[in-house]
């Protein structure tokens, strides 16, 4: 089916001819020459062109050809110099079939690798007959990824999913497999996610968990587990949502690989019946071995607040779940300037390369930025905090680290949802809005 889609895309691209090539803008990082995705070029009359995963923009508005055109430039952490009006902008001689190179100065510590969800990952390049083999998955947006190794592959799931054919999408969690690793070692842009998407019999992306009430149902706290017999399990915590992010029911669920769906195995919270468990394992779990050699799953966002013995049986047995006593210490990260930040969401992992626990978090009240931090213990103190990405008037929520890259890697890969939610931005970024953006942070850049 995948091959069929690829071939039809290529044949389609060679269909009836209309015109010569558009004006090409190639956007690169001035430091390393890497293509830079998500650079927005806006004309004075509100036409928006955004660089694709190959850092390419195809300007195809006929009225711009032959003109000297000013574009304001928003690179979300990648900048061009400000012009006389104080705005970041470039003026380009736009010609049909012409081209321009725009070099961006990276002002953030992390490097943007690209978008790994939504439609048109290479839509601009395809205007030039390039990347025709890269097909879209059929969804146009989704949020809140969870990714875990399952068998010899990676298993991915997302919260809500937007579709192209209608204004309303899928609200009962979508999922995919990829090879492990999903991206080459030492990844550079352009990236292309090799998803094997869970689809229905018609080949359309489908939900993977049955609703337990009205409203969306999400799965968080995804974790790969082994039982006593050594069998692999993939578990998570489902939440049934109403209103604005109000989880009114939740419980445990397990991936049914044969049926390609999550089966609900336990209900825990039930607000309508006033049942409120103290804890449910729905944050980003991380593996940790205590000084006595006992293995645990730590649950936090990213600062751990509960722990579960690292086994399938213990994960299913709520009696084994324990609250972590921080002894009065603050769950905060200390920035290099001495300020302290609270985390809205985030994840951590052990880095053997860094010889530290390293974490990323979305800071409260600064929805478009992520902060890096590190510690000798998952329980802190977390220090050396630095802002590593920023998105202007945009939200970048639910960041996760791709722990499968391994502790030895001299970098971390992380992604989060780029969305106009929670900010007052009347101009959502075409194709990028409500999709997952992948970044890379090299430890050497922290010096």
């Amino acid at each position, binding site marked *: 089916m995948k091959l069929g889609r690829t071939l039809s895309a290529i044949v389609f691209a060679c269909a009836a001819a209309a015109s*010569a090539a558009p004006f090409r803008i190639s956007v690169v990082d001035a430091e390393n020459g890497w293509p830079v995705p998500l650079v927005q070029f806006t004309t004075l009359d509100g036409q928006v062109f955004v660089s694709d995963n190959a850092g390419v923009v195809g300007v*195809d508005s006929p*009225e711009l050809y032959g003109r000297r055109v*000013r574009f304001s430039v928003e690179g979300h952490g990648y900048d061009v110099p400000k012009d006389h009006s104080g705005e970041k902008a470039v003026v380009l001689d736009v010609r049909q079939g012409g081209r321009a190179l725009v070099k961006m100065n990276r002002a953030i510590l992390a490097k943007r690798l690209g978008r790994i969800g939504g439609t*048109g990952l290479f*839509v601009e390049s395809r*205007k030039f007959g390039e990347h025709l083999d890269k097909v879209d998955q059929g969804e146009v947006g989704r949020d809140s990824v969870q990714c875990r190794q399952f068998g010899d592959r990676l298993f991915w799931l997302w919260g809500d999913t937007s579709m192209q054919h209608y*204004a309303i999408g899928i609200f009962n969690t979508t999922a995919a497999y990829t090879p492990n690793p999903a991206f080459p070692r030492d990844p550079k842009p352009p990236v292309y996610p090799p998803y094997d998407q869970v689809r229905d019999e018609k080949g359309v992306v489908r939900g993977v968990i049955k609703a337990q009430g009205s409203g969306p149902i999400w799965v968080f706290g995804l974790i790969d587990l082994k039982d006593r017999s050594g069998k692999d399990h993939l578990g998570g915590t489902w939440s049934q949502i109403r209103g604005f992010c109000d989880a009114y029911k939740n419980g445990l669920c397990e991936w049914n690989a044969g049926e390609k769906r999550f089966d609900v195995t336990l209900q825990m919270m039930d607000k309508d019946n006033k049942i409120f468990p103290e804890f449910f394992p729905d944050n980003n779990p991380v593996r940790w071995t205590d000084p006595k050699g006992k293995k645990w799953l730590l649950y936090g966002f990213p600062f751990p607040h509960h722990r579960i013995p690292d086994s399938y049986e213990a994960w299913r047995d709520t009696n084994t779940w324990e609250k972590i006593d921080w002894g009065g210490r603050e769950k905060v990260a200390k920035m290099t300037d001495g300020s302290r930040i609270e985390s809205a969401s985030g994840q951590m992992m052990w880095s053997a390369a860094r010889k530290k626990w390293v974490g990323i978090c979305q800071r409260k009240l600064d929805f478009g930025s992520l902060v890096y931090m590190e510690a000798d213990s998952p329980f802190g103190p977390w220090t050396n905090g630095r802002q590593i990405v920023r998105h202007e008037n945009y939200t970048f929520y639910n960041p996760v680290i791709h722990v499968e890259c391994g502790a030895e890697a001299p970098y971390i890969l992380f992604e989060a949802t780029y969305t106009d939610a929670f900010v007052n931005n009347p101009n959502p970024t075409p194709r990028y809005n409500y999709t997952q953006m992948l970044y890379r942070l090299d430890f050497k850049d922290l010096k």
Partner: protein
Amino acid sequence: MMNLTATLAAVIGLAANCADLPAPCGLSIVEKGSGRIVPALMFNTSFAVRCVTDNDGVIALGAPDILGKDTWFGIEGYGYELKKDFIGNAGFGVKPKPGGSERREVDREMKAVCLGRLTGSGIFAESQKLGRRAEWRELGDMRRYDVQCVPLGSRILWIWNRAVMADGRTVCAVGAATDASALPPPEPPVVPSYKVMSGEADMFTSLFEKPDWTVSLSGVTVLRDSAGKQHLVAVYTRYGDDGKALSTGLCEFVKSRRRFCMLKAASGERDDFPVGHAVRYAAAGAKPVVLFCDPFPRIEVPDSYEAWRAGGSAWKKLPQPEVESGALSGSMAYVPGAGKWVAVYQAKKPGELWCAKSDSPYGPWTSEKIVSFGSHAFENPVIHAYALKPESRSVYFEGTLTNRGGEGKRGYVPRILDNQLLYRLDIE
């Protein structure tokens, strides 16, 4: 598998050498019932791509991730709607084929008919992407707004207070002419036909003697002096970088300099000057006057150059009528076929456009809403009074669609914002 891979690689290689793009699919938007085309109507896909119909009422769907895919287009137009579905979404699905054509109908919910866009670039851009309108030439501006118009002999003189060029250059008080015989079309599409004023290389040279000033002209009109000589006059206002008025005064077009030149030092506030849109009126048995309206008469001046220059008691300030919704800006004219004075104006709630009718230019007025532009604003609506004939029962008016003012979130409307849209309103 090997053969398949080799084939695939060969096809990919071939495709990579394709010099041509797939032809877009033309999506035509028409009004249900009449079948008339609908310009300047915006649609949003579920992945935040905005598409706007050009003056031919078409959108060229050529993006590689839209062609061949079932795609939802949610309507975001003003005055044109679609019935919401059971979930509350208004729009339609299209699966555009390369080189194909699709047609969808929308309901017109306002009394006015949108005839098209008059200024800015890409007025027929979508049609041009479809290989049509090859003869259409752009003037080079991207935003041109805040218009004044005045009959001048066999021509109509148009002055726009701001023009922003593609490269970012902003020019104040630019002008052009059209033939007085070239009336607005009763049905879309409108095809603007502005001509460069004589002696100028292009339209985009300031007509004001201080081209580096941020200046607006208002109350532009032609007045005769006692010797019968015609004078093209206006009120200028100079603005500071903060947008506040610095000075206001009278100015007159000097033919030898081809510029409006200041007549005397400013005195008083801008509102004390004959600004707005000039309307000639003569009550039974009374001397003719010029009413400077915005939208209702604000200043009344005897119809002579000398009175206009005299100021002081020659400028009679008029009380403003109470109208439902209040009025921010607009203009009025007498519609002979309807036997009514008609005003079209932006309400105090900036996104709302209203119409008022009266038997007298001084009111009282009865008013009704024409359309709401929601989060955007429709500024400075101007009735094309020159186009009114004895039998006219319709007014043509234009105004600036802008994201200044309005309510709530205000996003781009590609190519449209800060440009002039022309409408026809039938007077019952």
